[in-house]
Structures are given as structure tokens and as C-alpha cells.
């Protein structure tokens, strides 16, 4: 009997103690971020979709269309085509399109790039209305960035006399 009364009192006290915790939090300031009004900065290693690094020397990208990234990608996100630039023996990317809806954010493409042409963008507003919205034209994005920086816009190189090896590109028109 006494044990029962004791248990009841301890139980009742535990409830009051619990109420004490919640009322303490009730008067604490809130911790959530009111998203569209306040924004957080993305972490330095945030993995958004990839974009080209603008090379300070040339003001353009470094991609030589070796397709290492496209081959490494587990989900076939990347389609890249390149042509041999007239006068040099080097290849250069003409199109670089991501189907971001398939991306699993592993970051292998950036790691595998031999010319270190890729980086992660800090774009996080990635919702779209259709699958088409998920197709990202990295070259167009680069051009937009160049315009914003006042650099001369990237002009995709014209193929040499022989016809450029073109590959099937996925999706339709990209947007930035």
C-alpha cells in the first residue's frame, strides 16, 4: 500500500517535472529559420549540381571533353560532346548537359576530372515543375556567369574540317 502511494506520488512528480521542461522551452527563443525571409549560407562543400570552374587565365572553362566524368557517373547523368579545336590538337567541350533528376550526388565526376574543370555549384533551389526543369546546360550556365562577371562569353568552338564526333545528348533545351 505504501509502495503504491509512493509510486503514485513519484509518478505525479515526474509529470510535473516534465511540464517544467516544456514550459522552460516555451519561453526560449525559437530556433527555426523562416526560410523565404531568412536564408542560410550553404556549407563550403555543399554538393549541388556541377558547374564549370572559370579559369582565371582564359576566363573560360577547362573541359576537354575527355568524358571521364560521363563514364564514371553511376547514373548516366552527364552527356558531353567535344570537338577538336582548329589549329590545336586539343579537344574542347561543345555541349555539357546534366540530367539532374538522375543524379545521386556522389561527387565522383568532380573527383575524376583530369583537368579539374568541375566544381559544385551552391544552387539549392532545385525544385521544378517538370522533368525538363531538371536538365541543366552547364555551358549556358557558364555563359550566364561570364556575362555577370563581364567576361567575354564562351563561344563553343567550331569543328575542324572533319565532322565532329557527336554523341547522343539527352533531353531538350537546358536552362541555367
Amino acid at each position, binding site marked *: 500500500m505504501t509502495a503504491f502511494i509512493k509510486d503514485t506520488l513519484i509518478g505525479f512528480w515526474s*509529470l510535473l517535472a516534465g*511540464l517544467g521542461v516544456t514550459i522552460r522551452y516555451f*519561453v526560449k*527563443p*525559437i530556433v527555426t529559420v523562416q526560410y523565404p525571409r531568412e536564408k542560410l549560407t550553404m556549407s563550403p562543400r555543399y554538393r549541388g549540381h556541377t558547374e564549370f570552374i572559370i579559369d582565371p587565365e582564359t576566363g573560360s572553362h577547362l573541359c576537354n571533353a575527355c568524358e571521364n566524368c560521363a563514364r564514371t557517373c553511376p547514373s548516366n547523368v552527364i552527356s558531353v560532346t567535344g570537338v577538336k579545336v582548329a589549329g590545336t590538337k586539343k579537344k574542347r567541350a561543345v555541349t555539357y548537359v546534366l540530367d539532374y533528376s538522375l543524379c545521386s550526388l556522389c561527387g565522383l565526376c568532380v573527383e575524376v576530372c583530369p583537368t579539374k574543370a568541375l566544381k559544385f555549384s551552391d544552387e539549392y533551389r532545385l525544385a521544378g515543375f517538370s522533368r525538363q526543369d531538371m536538365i541543366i546546360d552547364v555551358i549556358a550556365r557558364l555563359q550566364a556567369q561570364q556575362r555577370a562577371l563581364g567576361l567575354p562569353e564562351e563561344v563553343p568552338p567550331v569543328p575542324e574540317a572533319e565532322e565532329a564526333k557527336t554523341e547522343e545528348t539527352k533531353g531538350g533545351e537546358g536552362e541555367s
Partner: protein
Amino acid sequence: MQFLLAEGARIGISLIGVIGLVSINALFLIWMERKVSAHIQLRPGPMEVGFHGALQTIADALKLIGKELITPEDADKLIYLLAPIVMFLPVLVSFIVIPFSPTLLIRDLNVGILLIFAFSTMAVLAILMAGWSSNNKYSLLGAIRSVAQTIAYEIPLLITAMSVIIMVGSLKLTDIVAYQATVWNVLFQPLAFILFIICGTAETNRAPFDIPEAESELVAGFHTEYSGMRFAIFFLAEYTNMFIVSAVATVLFLGGWRGPILPPLVWFLLKVYAIIFLMMWFRWTFPRLRFDQLITLGWKILIPLSLANLILTALAIKIF
């Protein structure tokens, strides 16, 4: 003839007043619940519609009005339709006797407190009707739970109210308020007050006693199948029930409308909303009981305690 007209006008005005009060009260309480829960959980709650989301509930109400009313195919249609009404009407009736202030009350019945308790019990009937007629196993389980646990909290609720009533010697709510002119009953009856709040929380089916709806177990319990306004009526009834239970607690224990400086109505509402805040605070703090545990709690703790309290009160009255 003139008497009938006057009486008719009085009833009409009261009805409109009550329905208006019920709606505004529910809108306010839902907003308040959101804000209380939000701040307990370190977040701001609704902020977008109106000042600090004050109009959010109205937006939700409009949404609910616009929603399709679904009736399950194999439902017992008549009972299914009646259940929300059976839930809501008794709640309205209770407003007849609640004394908001010395002047603001519809009918000062001699058996006021009995009327409220009698009608509030009908909520269980409504829950049973809703759960049974939905033809949904979750709803049925919810309904059965509700019926099974009724006695566990109804009896101590009545007995604790009884200890106040034998002190006052009247079932009339205004008499009970008048009795507390100098000292509130809660000082004589602290245990009864605590028991009344616990049983009142169970009476309104709110956490930690929200066993008939227990969303993590029974999806939404007895109102799983209800949608649109029918669901909204259950919701409205729940919040109005909270108001009534708190109003009764205010009258029985906290001196009703009495208080210095401020007008009586303000005092009354302040006390009622303070008790409602307490109930919300419970909800956002405690886990839910299992339904047999509520019955155990009722029979092993609440009923003996309330009986002991009643006997002590009776003895005290006899002696002094």
C-alpha cells in the same frame, strides 16, 4: 403572447450568440494550440496569414468547407451522418447555463451543473456512432476504446464536482460562484481541482488521454473516415468541449467571473483560457496512455482519491 415573443427573441439571440461564440472560440483555440505547441517546440508556428498567423485557422476552415464529403460505401449512412450532429448539439446546449458574468447568462437553471455533465456524456455516444457506422476497423477500435474508458473518468469527475456541490449546497452555477465571494474553492479543495483537471482532460479526449483517436495507433480513430466539414465539426466539438470543461472548472474552483478591477466577463475568460492553456501544455508534454492504463488510473487512483476527498469534505462540513 408578449412573453412568448420576448422569450422567442431571447432564445434566438442566445442561439446566434452561442454559435458565434463557439466558432470564434474554436478559431481562437486552434490558433492558440498551434502557437502553444510551436513555442514549446522552439518554432514560431503559423506566421503567414494575418498577424502572426491569426487568420490561418479561417483559411483552414474555408479549405475544409471546400473539401469533398466522403461517405464510405458500406457505411451505415444515417448514423454516419448523425454522428457529428450528436457530437455537436449537446455541446451547444451546455452553453445555456454557463455564467459568463452576473448578467451574461442564458438560463440560470437549478440543476445547471447536472445539465452540463448529462449532456457532455453524450459525446461518447457520438463517438460510438461515428466509429460503428464508418465501417472501418480503426474507427471501430477507437469507438470501443472510448466506451470502455468512459466510466474510468466520468465517475471521478462527478464525485469531485460533488465535493464542491455539498460544500455550496446548490447545483446552481450562480450559487456556486456566489459562494466563492471571498475565497476560491480551489483553496479548500486543491485535490479535487487536480482530479477535476485530469478527468476533464480525459473527458475531452485530449492527450495524454486521446486514446479513441490515438493517431499513431489507430490512424485517426473514430473519425478516420470523416472529411471536410463533418471532420471539422468533430474538431469544433473538441475545442468547444475544452471550453466547457474549463468553464465548469472555473465556476467550481476558481470563483467564476469574480476578480478585481477588470470586468467580470474578462476575468471569466481569462480563467477559462488559463485552464485551456494548461490542457494544451499537457498535450505537448506527455506521451499517450494505453487504454487499459487509463482504466487502471481511473479505478485505482482517481476514484479512491475522489471518494476520499468527498468523505473528508462531508466530515469537515459536519464538524465545522
